[in-house]
């Protein structure tokens, strides 16, 4: 189950008894871990810091200044250059495929999870669940050639829909795994009492299961969203024209285009990462539990 839950459980446990104190005392003395933690901070932060400061330097400052020094004459020119090079279009494409994937993928996964839990015992639904679990082991890279063939046959090559449809399919297995775990926790009596009141399955899905699994829905959406946003292989293979480029692919072409202009390349890196970093600053907890969804078993 998602980390958020496990964290909640442990927190409640440590506040309940004195046990938490003991652990805290033990962990505080972990000096080796402490050293590793601070060293890791330096390793993580140096490249990130370097990206940001360099993106505000002009080319001559990039070649002459100390690479870790703050820019002597900070400039927005690199950002301007990137934005003038169709960045807004690529950004919009990325937004379209991310929203276009996440909303339907989570909706149909939620419906499927609901059906699987409510119909527990049905052979067919059990088989479907087994199929989805098997799907967790299918890497996208390995089936990209037939996906490419399918997209050509459907005459969708070089369209945003070509990126959306396979992404939806590949978001289903993990989403169903996480969502079934949550819907299973909804007390059966609640469904029973609603059924007695004459509610249909769709009404129960909407007014009972949906509100009770909202945190899981957010988690799954974030997880899938991040994957689609950062996805590189599908755009690389299923699109061709510059107007259909998504951000990761655009980064790659920017790099070819501005190859010597490192500050501009890094400004494009900052711009593509910015929306996610902002999201991270706002909803850190949700995002982290989204990242480890289904894996913290």
């Amino acid at each position, binding site marked *: *189950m998602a*980390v958020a*839950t*496990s964290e909640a459980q*442990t927190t409640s446990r*440590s506040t309940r008894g004195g*046990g*938490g104190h*003991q*652990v*805290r005392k*033990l*962990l*505080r003395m*972990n000096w080796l*871990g402490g050293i*590793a*933690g*601070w060293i890791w*901070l330096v390793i*993580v*932060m140096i490249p*990130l810091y*370097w990206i940001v400061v360099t993106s505000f330097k002009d080319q001559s400052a990039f070649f002459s200044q100390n690479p870790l020094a703050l820019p002597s004459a900070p400039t927005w020119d690199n950002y301007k250059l990137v934005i003038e090079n169709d960045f807004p279009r690529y950004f919009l494409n990325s937004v379209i495929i991310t929203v276009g994937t996440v909303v339907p993928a989570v909706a149909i*996964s939620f419906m*499927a999870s609901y*059906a699987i839990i409510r119909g527990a015992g049905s052979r067919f639904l059990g088989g479907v669940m087994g*199929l989805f679990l098997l*799907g967790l*082991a*299918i*890497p996208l*890279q*390995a*089936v*990209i*050639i037939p996906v*490419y063939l*399918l997209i050509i046959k459907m005459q969708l090559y070089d369209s945003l829909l070509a990126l959306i*449809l396979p992404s*939806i399919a*590949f978001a*289903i297995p993990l989403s169903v795994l996480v969502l079934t775990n949550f819907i299973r926790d909804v007390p059966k009596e609640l469904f029973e009492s609603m059924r007695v009141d004459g509610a249909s399955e769709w009404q129960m899905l909407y007014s009972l299961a949906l509100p009770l699994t909202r945190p899981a829905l957010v988690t799954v959406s974030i997880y899938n969203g991040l994957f689609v*946003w*950062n996805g590189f292989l599908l755009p690389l*293979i299923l699109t061709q024209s510059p107007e259909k480029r998504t951000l*990761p*692919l655009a980064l790659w072409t920017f*790099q070819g285009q501005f190859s010597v202009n*490192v500050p501009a390349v890094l400004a494009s*890196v900052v711009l*593509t*990462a910015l929306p*996610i*970093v902002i999201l991270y600053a706002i909803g850190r907890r949700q*995002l982290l539990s989204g*990242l*480890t969804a289904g894996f*913290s*078993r």
Partner: protein
Amino acid sequence: MVLPALFMFLLFGVVPLIGVFALSFTQWDGLGPIHPAGISNWRSTLKDPGLYHSLWVTFEIIALSWLVQTPISLLLGTFLAGRQRYRGFLAVLFFIPLLLSSAAIAITYKALLDPNFGLAAGLHLSFLAQDWLGKGNLAIAVVIFIISWQFIPFHSLIYQGGVRQIPTTMYEAASIDGAGRVRQFFSITIPQLKYTIITSTTLIVVGSLVFFDLIFVLTAGGPGDATRVLALDMYKRGFMSNQMGPASVIATILVILGLVLALLLRRLGGSTTASQQEGA
């Protein structure tokens, strides 16, 4: 209600899985008609030393990235399990690389490691200003480093969750018996994290098997073929040399390898129910 998801998954998950196997017996250039080709692709690909080179590079990356990531993640995970404020703050910063796309990371490191204009050259640290991506062994080391840079936080997070699940009474009992910190780490923390370690290992192994984006942007398999992993080999044969048949052979091998490795690791971890009991 299950039908829309089932339909999408069958169409873009199951059909391609069968399709990749079927295509491995055909000849197709990616555009024109598809011709049946019997087992000729399999015969020629299995004879090709390039395949074994890619297999070797892939295993090298799997093994090395496991060896680097696991101890560091364990150490950091244990450290982050502490509830001090500053540790929470460190954790927030640690996860930033996980949010970036592999393309962004590869592009950044390509510029950062440049022997003439990169970070080391700018700081006049000549011993660090190597031609990192120009020499085979160094390029593999760089790939391992970047994978670790991006994913160690993720595995630390898994271990953090695992460590917090360990009953404190075990540590109390151990301290009463006079076991030191190091002793406790090896005889309580590690055995208790057995299933967490297996989960993290499975993710590292299966994840490195299909590593593509990072290597494609960073080195495109080079220098020479030094970092040409299986997934990249498949891409190059299929989409650059227009030989979808042999590429499908490689893809089939990838699917089988992934399933075999995942099952092996699962066997190692005992039954699924056991791992669920231990889990969150």
